[in-house]
């Protein structure tokens, strides 16, 4: 292994370690303010997507311009040196594929269908322009964080279950395992972030260069080429991930990576204009269909409890990149990836499932780590209403009188009231005397909800001793973020 390769492997290991370590610190609830969103803020795909969908580039996402600049200088070094998903795939292909030299050459040849990623990028960006942000489904940073948060931490000792997360974990696993047959298959054929960087990498200053005089066409350079960019033939700069395997493999030192004069005609992505136009038109049509399919965003859904501080559904779906950082940060395991709760376009966006966990009254962790401000940052005083204004409400709790022990079974129980964190408690107890089956008198305290006090945190539902379906359940009505989803007449609209 030449020293260039060693340095690259060190970089890859470092960035993968930092990526996983930050997720681990999030799950551990580390109170220190680590830069949890650093990868996601450098992601130009998220920045472009939210800019197109929401008309704004929230917060530190502007930093992603630096990655574009880096790509214009050095090419797709992000893919080859930084991206954790790229590293995982390269590792899998390194460990598990025992190919002969002939097979290696075959598998590292460019295929026309590797251009799929450009169509995917076009479809995602046009979809974003049409108002539905789906870049997070395929964005490698979101995809990796989501797969790890839903697939790895839940099975670690002390991990909290994420019942809807198996699909995200399976997608990540599938992508990594696929590298056993085609190295970096996802990067080559599907990654929209790689495609976006590829668009700029064509103009890169530093590029792979083959000196024709020294080259004896031995094909060793293509043996471990990660990007299938054919350094031996007409080099495809936009596909090259700057892994530098070709440079170190060349026995004649014919291949180098250095600053070169701009290409007279940078090779464009290998696209068919007809297919591209079709893709654009299709995604223009699909975006509103997706929105309508779930019943529309205007329809409030009972089970759609968004994290505290989440924007109204339109704004939320224009920003959420499905990265699972909020899910990983939630101390109680309340935040789960939505499967059906948020419609088709809200797939994998975060929802609160009170039976899994409750929203801790003074906790504002999810908003602190949201990279795109789909969940706004709240102070504890703002969230709880201790600043004098109305608290931030997620929903409202409703007692199911058919299941509640005092209401239905004449059995004492006050757990929901005991747990209620508001002050005074939103759940109060109505004293009642009832006649039991044997004719004796039973004194009971029956829980009632005062909706003006309830913030919908869901601790009542979580701790309710009635198994599976709790006897008190939170639905989204009354949520602060939606001025139309209201319960009480006297309440101000927002």
């Amino acid at each position, binding site marked *: 292994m030449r020293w260039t390769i060693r340095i690259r492997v060190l970089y890859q290991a470092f960035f993968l370690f930092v990526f996983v370590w930050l997720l681990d610190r999030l799950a551990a*609830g580390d109170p220190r303010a680590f830069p949890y969103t650093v990868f996601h803020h450098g992601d130009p795909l998220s920045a472009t997507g939210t800019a197109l969908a929401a008309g704004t580039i929230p917060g530190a996402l502007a930093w992603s311009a630096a990655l574009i600049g880096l790509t214009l200088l050095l090419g797709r070094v992000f893919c080859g040196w930084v991206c954790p998903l790229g590293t995982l795939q390269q590792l899998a292909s390194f460990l598990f594929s025992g190919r002969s030299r002939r097979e290696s050459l075959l598998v590292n040849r460019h295929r026309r269908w590797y251009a799929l990623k450009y169509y995917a990028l076009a479809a995602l960006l046009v979809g974003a322009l049409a108002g539905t942000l789906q870049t997070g489904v395929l964005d490698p940073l979101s995809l990796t964080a989501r797969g790890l948060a839903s697939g790895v931490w839940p099975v670690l000792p*002390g991990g909290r279950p994420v019942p809807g997360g198996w699909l995200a974990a399976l997608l990540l696993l599938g992508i990594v395992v696929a590298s056993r047959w085609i190295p970096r298959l996802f990067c080559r054929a599907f990654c929209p972030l790689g495609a976006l960087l590829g668009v700029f990498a064509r103009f890169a200053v530093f590029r792979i260069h083959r000196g024709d005089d020294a080259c004896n066409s031995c094909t060793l350079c293509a043996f471990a080429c990660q990007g299938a960019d054919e350094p031996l033939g007409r080099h495809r700069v936009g596909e090259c991930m700057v892994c530098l395997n070709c440079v170190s493999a060349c026995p004649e030192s014919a291949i180098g990576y250095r600053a070169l004069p701009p290409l007279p005609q940078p090779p464009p992505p290998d696209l068919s204009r007809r297919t591209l136009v079709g893709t654009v038109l299709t995604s223009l049509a699909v975006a509103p269909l997706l929105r309508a399919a779930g019943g529309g965003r205007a329809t409030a859904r009972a089970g759609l409890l968004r994290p505290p501080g989440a924007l109204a559904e339109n704004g939320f779906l224009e920003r959420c990149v499905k990265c699972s950082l909020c899910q990983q940060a939630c101390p109680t395991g309340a935040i789960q990836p939505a499967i059906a709760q948020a419609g088709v376009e809200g797939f994998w966006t975060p929802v609160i499932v009170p039976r899994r966990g409750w929203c*801790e*009254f003074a906790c504002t962790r999810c908003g602190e780590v949201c990279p795109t401000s789909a969940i706004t940052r709240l102070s504890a005083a703002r969230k709880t209403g201790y600043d004098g204004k109305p608290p931030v409400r997620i929903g409202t709790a409703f007692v199911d009188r058919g299941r509640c022990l005092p209401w239905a079974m004449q059995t004492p*129980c006050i*757990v929901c009231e005991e747990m209620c964190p508001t*002050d*005074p*408690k939103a759940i109060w107890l109505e004293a009642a005397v009832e006649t039991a089956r044997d004719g004796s008198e039973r004194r009971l305290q029956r829980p009632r909800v005062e909706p003006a006090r309830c913030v919908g945190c869901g601790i009542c539902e979580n701790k309710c*001793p009635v198994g599976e379906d709790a006897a008190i359940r939170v639905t989204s009505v009354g949520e602060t973020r939606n001025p139309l989803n209201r319960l009480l007449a006297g309440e101000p609209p927002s």
Partner: protein
Amino acid sequence: MSDPERPGITRREAVLRLASTAAAAAAVGVGVAVFHDRRLVTAAAAAIPDWRVPIASRPPAAAARGADPAANVRRAVAALGGVGRFVRPGESVLIKPNVGWDRLPEQAADTDPAVVAELVRLCRDAGARRVVVADLSCNDPRRCFASSGIAAAAGAAGAEVLDARRLRLTPAALAGLAQGLEVVEELLQADRVINVPVVKHHSLSGVTIGMKNWFGVLGPGRNRLHQEIDRAVAELGATFRPTLTLVDATRILAANGPVGGSLADVRAVGAVLAATDPVLADAWGASLLGRRPATLGFIAQAEQRGLGRADLALVQELGTA
């Protein structure tokens, strides 16, 4: 050398195969050690030990008042004969404060950190080998232990602070309680156990003080105990026999309990009671909330079962320092 009937393998290959087999076995072993659930294989439910020490003619309880919670702790414990009476050198002590809620000390939903810290110091000074401060919180344990100030104060005083993430549960013989309950394993390993509740209002049992504080060593399912709260709390008092009960009344929560929130519900009392009689401890705390002990069902039941006496005249009042 090579016999076609009995094909041999080279020494090199034998070593490699043995090594890979051993590595695979070790990996499986590590996986089993990490992932197996001890609770499913624990054979018998463990009995709850009795942590009391025999006590002679001392007062069963002593209450100290004053602005400094730490001084109150020292005076109250000294009046019962000093901490050396209860904790011997080399023993391990588990302190069970109420760290149930993500609240600040001023909100009086959790035990005062200064009381817990002073008790830790007393135990360390008495030569305790290990002092553990543990509770299974109702809110997120990290936030509870941080907000209440107990993690910092008890840790600085030399205790090992264990929250729900680091406590293991084990099935225990809880005869009169709901089926299938588990208790904190560290509790069973401790030589001495000191209960350090805070005095609070509770809408079902009237008040929550010492015996109700044992909810915090029970695992999932404890919320079903509310269905017969008075009997359950008395049963807890009969099951868990602490060395000492130290009632924190530095601040008490008079309404909206046991979570509280509003400072309007908090009353500064500035008192600490040390007691060897848990029923008397609860009776004293209840009186601070303006409740006559006899009107509280769980105190009456505990007294009937002979767990202690709810006679406030037995409390030695040490007055204000």
